[in-house]
């Protein structure tokens, strides 16, 4: 059933052959380092290097059938994965676009380039949809758009999604997939989005409403140090890289090798920051159960 979300006809799914790079620190050089595959039919696993047919990869929710490596999902793929029916998903604020408030050199060009590349106006997709029969305010970041970094638009859209949850009395689910931190091209305006989103979450909290934060690969910097850490329940996708400082910065600072498993979902659960690590294929089912226990605005049958 979940497999269908990744059928090629899906409105919100475009299974790409482009592979993510393993190390988020080198992400900005992604383009250069991409090994071209012979054609669009298969993908080489970043982890085990197995060649996987794209159809099979899509059926497996973009999880490597050999080594369980979770490929990154785009925001549209993530929404498709989670909602019961894509056609019912109502996107909001899809047209909001970044200005260039600091007149930062080349920023407009970059925005244009990523808009073309991703078919998104910005690094986040927000809206309202049903998850296992429960209507929720949904947010998904997109790692492809300037590493899913948070600028004024991303902060504003997330804040509005939080306000929407409050207004419509819906639970909030944010998938912090792709977290490049606060986007430097908008300077302090980006940094302050951390405060803005966290402040809005306080209002949601005061209203007694549920916020489930899902961290996926990669979630770092200003993303992890704001909304992504503030779930009533924090869920981590298996193997996702999550942390505050980037591993390269840490390595340089302490001048030591980093421990195995450092800054993964599993590491965060061990250290008390994440409630539960889940495989992608179990994610929607878990959300259904959590929504059920919190019994929020569900259909009568409460299920899928």
């Amino acid at each position, binding site marked *: 059933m979940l497999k269908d979300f990744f059928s090629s006809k899906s409105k919100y799914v475009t299974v790409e052959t482009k592979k993510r790079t393993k190390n988020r620190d080198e992400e900005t050089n992604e383009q250069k380092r991409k090994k071209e595959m012979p054609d669009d039919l298969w993908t080489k696993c970043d982890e085990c290097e197995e060649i996987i047919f794209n159809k099979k990869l899509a059926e497996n929710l973009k999880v490597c059938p050999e080594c369980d490596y979770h490929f990154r999902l785009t925001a549209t793929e993530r929404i498709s994965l989670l909602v019961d029916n894509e056609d019912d998903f109502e996107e909001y604020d899809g047209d909001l*676009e970044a200005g260039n408030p600091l007149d930062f050199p080349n920023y407009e060009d970059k925005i244009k380039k990523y808009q073309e590349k991703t078919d998104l106006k910005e690094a986040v997709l927000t809206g309202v949809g049903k998850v296992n029969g429960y209507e929720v305010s949904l947010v998904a970041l997109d790692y492809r758009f300037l590493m899913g970094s948070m600028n004024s638009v991303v902060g504003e859209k997330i804040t509005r999604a939080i306000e929407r949850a409050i207004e419509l009395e819906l639970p909030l689910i944010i998938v912090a997939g792709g977290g490049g931190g606060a986007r430097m091209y908008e300077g302090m305006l980006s940094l302050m989005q951390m405060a803005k989103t966290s402040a809005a979450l306080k209002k949601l909290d005061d209203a007694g409403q549920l916020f489930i934060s899902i961290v996926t690969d990669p979630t770092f910097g200003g993303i992890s140090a704001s909304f992504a850490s503030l779930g009533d329940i924090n869920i981590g996708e298996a193997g996702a890289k999550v942390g505050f400082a980037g591993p390269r910065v840490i390595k340089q600072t302490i001048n030591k090798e980093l421990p195995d498993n450092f800054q993964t979902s599993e590491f965060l659960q061990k250290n008390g920051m994440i409630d539960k690590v889940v495989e992608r294929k179990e994610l929607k089912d878990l959300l259904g159960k959590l929504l059920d226990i919190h019994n929020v605005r569900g259909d009568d049958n409460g299920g899928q």
Partner: protein
Amino acid sequence: MGDNKLDFEQPLIELEEKINELTEFMETKDIDLTDEVDRLKNRADTVREEIFANLEPWQILEIARHPERPTVLEYTQMMCDEFIELHGDRNFSDDKALVGGIGKLGDEAVTIIGHQKGKTTKENIKRNFGMAHPEGYRKALRLMKQAEKFDRPIISLINTPGAYPGIGAEERGQAEAIARNMREMIDLTVPIIIVVIGEGGSGGALGIGVGDKILMLEYSYYSVCSPEACAAILWEDSDQAETAAEALKLTAKDLLELDIIDDIIAEPPGGAHRDYERSAKLLKEEILKEIKQLQQLSQDELLELRYNKFRKMGQIKE
């Protein structure tokens, strides 16, 4: 001042040395050079004014990072009649890079928190160069909740290159600690005055940076990331930090224009490190003024204004 001279101050420093020489000469040789010394002093004032009126962002950043810049605990001692440092997060540790305590600022009982740097290498190692761990942010939150209980205004003095990037910091939830502080600070029922007194380094600064008023000392900076990191990422060349400092709009003047901060607090001529007492006096006056104003508001008004302040931050294409 030792080896802590700044390049762009060179003309000024040479003049000052000359003045000292002449004064000494005058005293030992008993020759009257008062006119010459006075002229040189006037000249020095003019030069100082010229230099400091036209500082580049990078130069401001150098003053903000000046090793002799007054630290939080120096300010608290100078500003408060009694200041008692309170330790610990009741949880894991006492972070020496983020300190806090209670005292009286004039007649006003206040809680003061802030990033503590050292002056010497030894002190800086003890203070971890003002880079806090999660337990620092948690101690700050504890002290702020205590302030709320006793209806004391909170003064948060920011001076950090950033939150510490290390293994222990990640293990103990640096991201969580910073995020939680922002969420809680938005709702504390007492006035909160934020002052960037030196370096305002990214999330590490913002972790104690949510409040009713955000002020900056004249020669401090506040930035989404260090200019060095910015240059390294953008141009793969950290030598371009000066260019990045320009682009990032990190000075008090820029941030006032961008509506990020509320006001700029003047520093003594040449910067805070040139006159501690005067710096403390200027800071204290400004803080007390803001507190008095905020105390006019009802609790609801205070919290609503604070929320709206952050709610409207950001600029989007119209």
